[in-house]
């Protein structure tokens, strides 16, 4: 006789809650973006806390937590944003393995810091694998649960979990905090703006625009950029911020019209005709996923050596997280 299926039911979806894993690399050249968690490190930590593989699918809840009824016993961990989890209305610690009994309801208090909570459930969310990933790419209606953000009444199947110690948590020192500085490599099109404009871009305080989402994080509040005069090349639009269409790297910073920088993130388009002043380094992309609207940030110049050193630091921190939760 078959075992009864383990499921969870979405009672309230929150603002936009999606199934995410570590993403779908390998298809960006075809226009299919990476997708996956905006803050991958917090998803990895949540998965390890509940005994899952690092890349198991969990839920990403932005700004407002969902309400979820469990139809099976499970272990749950909530990491990333400071958005206190509650079981049957009783507040629980974040970054901690929580035992949930069948019939219990997981809900959330108000967001206190950060932007996105990663919710891991033992066994992982068992939606179909599409192009190697369970991540939701809502703009392309691909992956996740029916290619979209969750709705009230959705039922999600869980994979088979492994037993794990209840109450274990990730030490506070290993919980990465949002920092208001995004390090970036200038290029490949920074020659389009004047040297003074570039310096002012780094000096100016920018604020996260409320439009910022999984596709791109928009910022405003700094000075408009001054462009170097030119004859538009064949194939480029007439606006000084236009280029002949080019590939857009993940993390690249385009500034349409020279006014509001947009950092392309996990659900980004892969190419187009806007110049890019630089690219945010891989180590700081997770931080962007935890930025709230109106939060002030600075862009800081680094070089390839600085980017690689930051990548090593990230790898070392992840190794310590794995050790702590082994």
């Amino acid at each position, binding site marked *: 006789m078959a075992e009864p299926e383990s499921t969870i039911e979405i009672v309230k979806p929150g*603002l936009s809650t999606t199934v995410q894993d570590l993403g779908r690399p390998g298809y960006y050249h075809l226009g299919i973006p990476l997708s996956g968690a905006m803050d991958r490190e917090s998803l990895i930590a949540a998965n390890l806390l509940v005994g899952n593989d690092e890349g198991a699918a969990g839920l990403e809840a*932005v*700004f*407002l937590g969902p309400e979820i009824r469990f139809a099976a016993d499970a272990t749950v961990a909530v990491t990333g944003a400071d958005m206190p989890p509650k079981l049957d209305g009783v507040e629980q610690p974040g970054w901690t393995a929580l035992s949930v009994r069948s019939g219990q309801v997981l809900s959330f208090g108000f*967001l206190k810091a950060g932007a996105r909570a990663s919710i891991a459930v033992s066994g992982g969310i068992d939606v179909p694998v599409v192009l190697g990933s369970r991540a939701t790419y809502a703009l392309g209606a691909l992956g996740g649960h029916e290619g979209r953000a969750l709705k009230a009444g959705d039922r999600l199947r869980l994979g088979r979990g492994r037993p794990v110690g209840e109450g274990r948590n990730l030490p506070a020192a290993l919980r990465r905090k949002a920092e208001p500085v995004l390090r970036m490599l200038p290029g490949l099109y920074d020659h389009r703006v004047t040297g003074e404009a570039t310096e002012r871009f780094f000096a100016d305080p920018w604020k996260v625009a*409320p*439009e910022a989402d999984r596709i791109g994080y928009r910022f405003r509040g700094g000075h408009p950029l001054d462009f170097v005069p030119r004859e538009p090349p064949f194939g480029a639009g007439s606006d000084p911020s236009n280029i002949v269409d080019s590939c857009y790297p993940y993390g690249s910073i385009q500034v349409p019209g020279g006014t509001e920088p947009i950092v392309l993130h996990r659900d980004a388009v892969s190419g187009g005709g806007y110049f890019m002043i630089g690219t945010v380094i891989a180590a700081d992309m997770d931080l962007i996923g935890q930025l709230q*609207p*109106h939060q002030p940030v600075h862009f800081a110049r680094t070089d390839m050596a600085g980017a690689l050193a930051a990548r090593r630091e990230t790898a070392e921190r992840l190794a310590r997280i794995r050790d702590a939760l082994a």
Partner: protein
Amino acid sequence: MALKTIQSPIPGTFYRAANPGDPPFKAENDPVAVGDTVGLIEVMKTFTPVLAEEAGTLKGFHVENEDAIMAGQPLYDLEA
């Protein structure tokens, strides 16, 4: 008569009217019924209505039109 402060569920930009120039959804001392729209919050290219979950009289706003708001920030006082 108990006075209750209603908090914002999400961060974003708060609007008191549907469009610039429109009358506000609610003015001070207006009655509020469950499900009434009290304001809009813009975030991630979406305008989310702030719907009243309790009925009463709106005694005053803590935020202005187009204010940047944080989740949990007081929005308005309701007398039940």
